[in-house]
């Protein structure tokens, strides 16, 4: 056999040739269709029986602004309670102690298994079960005075959230390599310290996207507290339209505010994700 030539013939040099642009007819066509449909919807609403001037006027009404503040206060506090409960319950669930494990599983089962609105109503009507509450000999009060709409909403939303958050946290902790627990133990850390210093910070990276999702859900779930008279956004919008009968206009006002808040939260979540990706994203120097 002859020695092979350095490069075989019949394979021309393609360097310097450009790749032609594709026309993408279908993309243009579908985009045009969508624009037409959107325009039709916009036209229908513009001509429908909506007084847009009311929307503009009530968008910044004092009661509505108070409502959005109350909504955010409740969402933040209930989420904080939910995260604290979620971490504690997730740690209990992963503990070797069967008592702690069962309590955690029971909690998740109970509060995930019943509707949130039912839990809110139960907390708010606790006075029907226990007319007075307190610590025997130390302090007692009438339940109707203690269980305000604020407290009932906080307990209902926060405890319910804890059941969901615990599963998110558990998944996050399970995602951390077992070698990390072992390395922490090898430098003399106990279980809880290893969780706090080594495992949870790494789990945060995994749990922040689902937690951001949960928080956006929480902002909207606060609207359920309108049924127990907590003066959040939807409740206040309802109160206005009970008086002036501009139902759709005020619902649109509330809807716009919810959209605005959620739009602001999304980039905030990305900032948090970056913070907890320390050591993972900063590969290049």
């Amino acid at each position: 056999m002859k020695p092979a030539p350095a490069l075989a013939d019949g394979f021309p040099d393609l360097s310097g040739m450009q790749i032609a642009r594709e026309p993408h007819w279908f993309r243009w066509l579908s985009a045009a269709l969508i624009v037409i449909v959107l325009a039709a919807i916009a036209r229908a609403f513009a001509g429908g029986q909506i007084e847009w001037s009311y929307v503009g006027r009530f968008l910044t009404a004092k009661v509505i602004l108070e409502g959005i503040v109350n909504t955010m206060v409740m969402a933040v506090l209930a989420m904080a309670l939910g995260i604290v409960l979620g971490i504690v319950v997730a740690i209990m669930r992963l503990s070797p102690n069967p008592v702690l494990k069962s309590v955690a599983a029971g909690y998740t089962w109970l509060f995930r298994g019943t509707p949130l609105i039912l839990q809110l109503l139960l907390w708010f009507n606790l006075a029907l079960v226990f007319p007075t509450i307190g610590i025997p000999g130390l302090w007692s009060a009438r339940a109707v005075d203690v269980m305000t709409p604020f407290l009932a909403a906080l307990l209902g939303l926060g405890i319910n959230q804890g059941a969901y958050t615990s599963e998110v946290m558990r998944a996050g902790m399970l995602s951390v390599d077992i070698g990390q627990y072992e390395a922490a133990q090898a430098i003399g850390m106990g279980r809880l310290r290893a969780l706090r210093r080594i495992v949870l910070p790494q789990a945060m990276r995994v749990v922040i996207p689902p937690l951001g999702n949960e928080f956006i859900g929480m902002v909207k779930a606060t609207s359920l507290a309108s049924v127990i008279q907590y003066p959040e956004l939807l409740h206040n919008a309802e109160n206005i339209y009970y008086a002036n009968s501009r139902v759709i206009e005020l619902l649109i006002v509330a809807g716009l505010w919810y959209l605005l808040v959620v739009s602001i939260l999304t980039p905030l979540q990305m900032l948090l994700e970056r913070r907890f990706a320390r050591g993972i994203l900063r590969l290049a120097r």
Partner: protein
Amino acid sequence: MTKPLVAIRSVSKNFGEFQALKSVSLDVWPGEVMCLIGASGSGKTTLLRCINQLATIDAGGIWLDGELLGVREQGGKLRRLSEGEIARQRLKTGMVFQRFNLFPHKTALENITEGPTQVQGRKADEVRAEAIELLRRVGLAAKADWYPAQLSGGQQQRVAIARALAMKPMLMLFDEPTSALDPELVGEVLAVMKQLAKSGMTMMVVTHELGFAREVADRVVYMDQGAIVEQGRASDVLGAPREARTRAFLSAVI
């Protein structure tokens, strides 16, 4: 007369049906460098993990520095120690893992200072100075503020060695410290270990690096199927093995 730093007596360990250790007895003397060799599944890694109690033994006893590990004799019975007491006993050993297991969210320096500050409660600036000195010893002073993901495997393992040394252990345990490394990075880790051996540290090294064992080990222990088959000076065990199983293993490896 000196006493062994580690005394292992009739230790057994099962994983379900599988007997990982079958009544193993062994002494490790202060200042000794011991290499444990053998096929995977022979029990050498399990033995190391039992010494720092990442695995609990099913029978027998291990004494470290004269102290019984993991259990206490009380009224003719053995009682398990609490988690806190076990954590305290672990401080006498430093462990280096096959896969490094550095904390990825902490810099090289923070990985080293974590134990001394958080567990031993020592002063931050004093620990920091020691950590920088340790990084210098493993040749990584310039990488103090780098995250593990920015370091090569060999560099990560050297940081891991520094992290274990920061706890000032009496005994260093190495679990196949170079097995996860690219071939060209093995040398830098072995060099750090040789230097550590020279400084008088007591070391138990599970390894496949027979060259390292020949050069550095005071004693080589060959294990097979959960038992010690042969042990002795490196030149004897590796150069003129008495047991047929040792000879078979060595000829398969080299």
